[in-house]
């Protein structure tokens, strides 16, 4: 689980062009949207693409994403439970 979380942090920083954020800045429970990291709707779509490409999970409804992408922890939990890759 901790390697998955580490992997997620690295991928998110590169995929979403978060230049001035380091892995250390990204806590497991930092809110990704809203007041924490401040990601936006396009970032959410990129995360959906990430879930599909890297872990074989297809999220058809962007609204479902809101719960899954709350924090690194919630993302990792969801991936563990649903990954096909």
């Amino acid at each position, binding site marked *: 689980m901790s390697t998955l979380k580490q992997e997620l942090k690295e991928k998110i920083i590169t995929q979403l062009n978060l230049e001035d954020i380091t892995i250390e800045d990204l806590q497991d429970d930092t809110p990704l949207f809203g007041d924490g990291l401040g990601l*936006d*709707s*396009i970032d959410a*779509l990129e995360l*959906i*693409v990430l879930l599909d490409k890297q872990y074989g999970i297809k999220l058809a409804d*962007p609204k479902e994403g809101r719960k899954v992408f709350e924090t690194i922890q919630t993302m990792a939990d969801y991936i563990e439970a649903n990954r096909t890759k």
Partner: protein
Amino acid sequence: MNRKPIAITGMGIISAIGNNLAENEASLLESRHGIRKYSVKDPLIHQEKLVGEILKPNEEFYSELNLNPNEAFTRSALLGLTAAKEAVQSANLDLNDGRKTGFISATTVGGMDATEKYYFDFLKSEANRKFVPTQNCGIHAEQIAQILGIKDYVTTISTACSSAANAIMLGARMIKAGILDRAIVGGADSLSAFTINGFSSLMIYSDEHCHPFDDNRKGLNLGEAAAYIVLESGKSSANKEVLGYLAGYGNANDAFHQTASSDDGEGAFLAMKTALEIAGLKPEEIDYVNAHGTATPNNDFSEGKSLSRIFKSVPDFSSTKTFTGHTLAAAGAVEAVFSLLALKNQKVFANLNWKTPMKEFDLKPQTEIKSKEIRTVLSNSLGFGGNCSCLIFVK
């Protein structure tokens, strides 16, 4: 400030509901849409997408327009030339009479359709390399202007879904400023894997026939089209049949997000406000609103909000994208033509596929074609990048 409205003396259009003006008009009057599964077997387009397709292959356009088969014309250029020719003919323009004429065209796809066909071929063989220079946005306008014989002013506007509305606005301004006597203005966009895949990646491409302003809307269907209208100064249009007048126009930026519209529809609100001011009209004097209405969850909410803010009582409104699909850069011109047809026929065209009102507003579009007295039509075109434009047409 010159407030006189600009005369419109001609129009031309080709879309999924007709290959010319008469066919488009008939389809609207009969509430017959043109949205179907994409007929082309395209390896680049993932699923069978519902699109507003013009069922005519490029070869047929080449022969109808008497074009040299060895010259490179992309689909956007072919559609554009078809519509522009019809517009010029319908306005009875003599392009050699010494009047200053401009051609302002809009596109987002440009020559992408050809690039998608021939890209991998370019490095392998000489055969299709003539399509390399036709990739960019500007060339379709140059080609069309050259064939029609327009030299005084040619330019291309590329501001996403508001492009053609902005082209119309620019033409009107240049006439008011005395730089041109008349202008052929509008836009052209063909279908492409580029745009279909792009909108799908944003998860706003619906797998159903789009239903604008419906609570259960899932997104848009793309379409291809080209449309142009002919704007003329008072002097230039004297003694001519006038189809309508461009009385007002406005453009404003929503300043919110690269592709989403703000919750309070500020950009659209400001564009409509400006258009009304220029037209010297009060909101209650608008008889019909041809909405941008793409049927994405975001647009219809934002546009609905802006309509509620500008109008104490929102007039009859509909989105004709249920007929043609979202034709991107051409949309502003396609819908300008439809607005003029509404004035001609005194009809509000239907907003098809509508069932359930949006939770957030008390807004019901006109779901069936309706006869009423129409003196004024307001048309919205809201583009990515927050570029919001509004045009007002009067009899």
